């Protein structure tokens, strides 16, 4: 059986690989959406935070013998703490002025972080091996899927849905959403809004770091790994609708699939297909697929 001249098996394989990449897009765009939705900051440092997550995992293993599972916990905490410091010292001054300042500041921070890591570790990159328990591959009949890639899909779905649940379905999430809607009023109810905003940025940074740890075993850890990805992730967020949490998760996964298929039918276009879709979406629905017109 063939679909568009491609054997069904190969077709299914490519779909699955698209889903793996989509998982990373979803995790990263989710963090961006949370930060933009609650803080109004276009966080260009997201790629750098993702890169730092991967480096924490690598350094942890090399210097302190920290295994992958501990890194998965430690990296988001460490990078999240960096995020908190950045928010307290720099970002908090920018909430009341135009979004463009936040964008410029975070872009500058990303360049500085990349520069520091490049100076310390070079650009060729570091190796991080797949954890023992997830090594090997499973034959699915239509393709051989490395176990680790399967794990990435599951882990990212758990992380994404968990975040969505916290923000949309819990009391804490309700405070957060109310705090961004009308901070003065929520403050009047005795809730510490600045603290909440600070923790939100920290959590967003932590999400990026967790994606970085998950990516470490499958791609080369280099200071540039974030900037290679961040532009695509921004396109994902724009397509999904700035600030829409479920939108960014679904769009991330869907675009991973579309990109995967493009790699089969017309590989040369695989790096631009996301942007073509973005242009079309912006023409038809300027607020994005899941965004609300204001």
């Amino acid at each position, binding site marked *: 059986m063939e679909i568009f001249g491609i054997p069904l098996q190969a077709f299914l394989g490519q779909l699955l690989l698209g889903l793996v990449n989509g998982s990373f897009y979803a995790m990263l765009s989710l963090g961006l959406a949370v930060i933009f939705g609650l803080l109004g900051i276009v966080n260009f440092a997201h790629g750098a935070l993702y890169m730092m997550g991967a480096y924490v995992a690598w350094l942890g293993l090399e210097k302190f013998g920290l295994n992958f599972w501990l890194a998965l916990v430690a990296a988001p905490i460490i990078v999240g703490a960096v995020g908190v410091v950045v928010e307290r010292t720099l970002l908090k001054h920018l909430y009341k002025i135009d979004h463009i300042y936040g964008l410029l500041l975070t872009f500058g921070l990303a360049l500085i972080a990349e520069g520091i890591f490049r100076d310390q570790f070079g650009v*060729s990159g570091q190796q991080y091996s797949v954890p023992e328990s997830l090594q090997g591959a499973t034959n699915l009949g239509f393709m051989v899927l490395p176990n680790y890639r399967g794990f990435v899909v599951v882990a990212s779905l758990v992380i994404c849905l968990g975040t969505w649940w916290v923000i949309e379905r819990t009391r804490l999430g309700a405070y957060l959403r109310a705090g961004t809607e009308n901070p003065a009023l929520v403050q009047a109810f005795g809730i510490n809004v600045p603290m909440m905003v600070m923790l939100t940025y920290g959590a967003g940074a932590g999400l990026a770091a967790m994606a970085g740890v998950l990516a470490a075993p499958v*791609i080369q850890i280099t200071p540039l790994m974030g900037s290679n990805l961040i532009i695509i992730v921004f396109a994902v967020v724009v397509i999904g609708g700035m600030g829409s949490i479920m939108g960014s998760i679904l769009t991330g996964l869907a675009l991973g699939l579309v990109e995967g298929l493009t790699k089969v039918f017309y590989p040369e276009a695989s790096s631009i297909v996301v942007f073509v879709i973005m242009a079309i979406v912006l023409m038809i629905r300027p607020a994005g697929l899941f965004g609300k017109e204001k």
Partner: protein
Amino acid sequence: MFKFSQLKAVKAVAGAAAVVAAGLFGAAAPAQAQISGDTIKIGLITDMSGLYADIDGPAGVEAMKMAAAQMGGAINGKKVEILSADHQNKADIAASKAREWFDTQGVDMLIGGSNSATNLAMAKVAAEKKKLFIAVGGATSALTNDQCSPYTVHWAYDTVALAKGTGNAVVKAGGKSWYFLQADYAFGQALQSDTAKVVQAAGGTIAGTVKHPLAASDFSSFLLQAQGSKAQILGLANAGGDTINAIKAANEFGVTKTMKLAGLLIFINDIHSLGLKTTQGMYLTDSWYWNRDAETRAWSRQFFEKIKRMPSSIQAADYSATLQYLMAVKATGSDDTDKVLAHLRNTKINDMFAKGGYIRPDGRMVHDMYLMQVKSPDKSTEPWDYYNVVQVIKGEDAFTTKAESKCALWK
């Protein structure tokens, strides 16, 4: 030790030549007066911060400084100065920086670092300004073929040499059917087509090619397509981070169980970052290897002291190009481009990078290339001890032949 005695000999000969020349032509002006601006300025424009920064970059500048220091930091009392700039892998930045340096800084010789596109752009500027341009990091064979120039010298390697070295060796070892993974830009195209020609000429077949965008983040999809081709060899017509990520994914998806990988442009830094476990048994062609003989080792250990990494072939070639240029300046007592170039073209190049090298009319510096195989982890005796030299490819066999060349300067 050998190096120093050799250098002394060269100095002595050069000194003698200068005396003889002065005597013969009764040169009125002393040699010193022929150094423009009273400094010998050599520039390097390369990728200082991007994906190719480790194979050349700041360490390449250090290698050039080592050459200057070896010449005593000055020639006939005129200081040697090394300049460097980052082209960010953009041809327009490289060209405008080169122009600025020739016009306002009085740069006498320019070395082109990594990235083919920037090298082609700098070569044009140098030709216009009639200044010597030595391409080191750029791989494209066009520099000495259809885009050759009387002012361009291509020092280290090119896509033809890489293709001939690895392509022939792999076909001879039984790898008859090939599938290519190609970076979708000028360099990938050149490397793929040069290699495909070599493979077919040697009796091999091409099962297909898949093109991927530059700096792709995920290769699994392309590798699955390659695996579907049932070819024996996966030719990697890409470089740097793309090659590394492709090799990594090939291992993860078990592609290496059914296909053998042939890296067409691999530097020792790539092997270092991938590790021997992932890369063992792979063939590659390079212009130089630090652990080849006593002389290369001695120089490399000095380099290691400063950089804490072993030198890549490009860094070694940066050193060699700078050293040979300075020796030519010393011999001619001038930094006049035409005089220095004439001297370089008539002199055999002998240093720790090349033995008996010479510059052809098309600008190609012809020297031996090395076909190497990556060691298995248990055979590697120290960090950075990664290769076995399988075959020394004579310069005449490695590079573009006269029959293949379209360069008007070599007809």
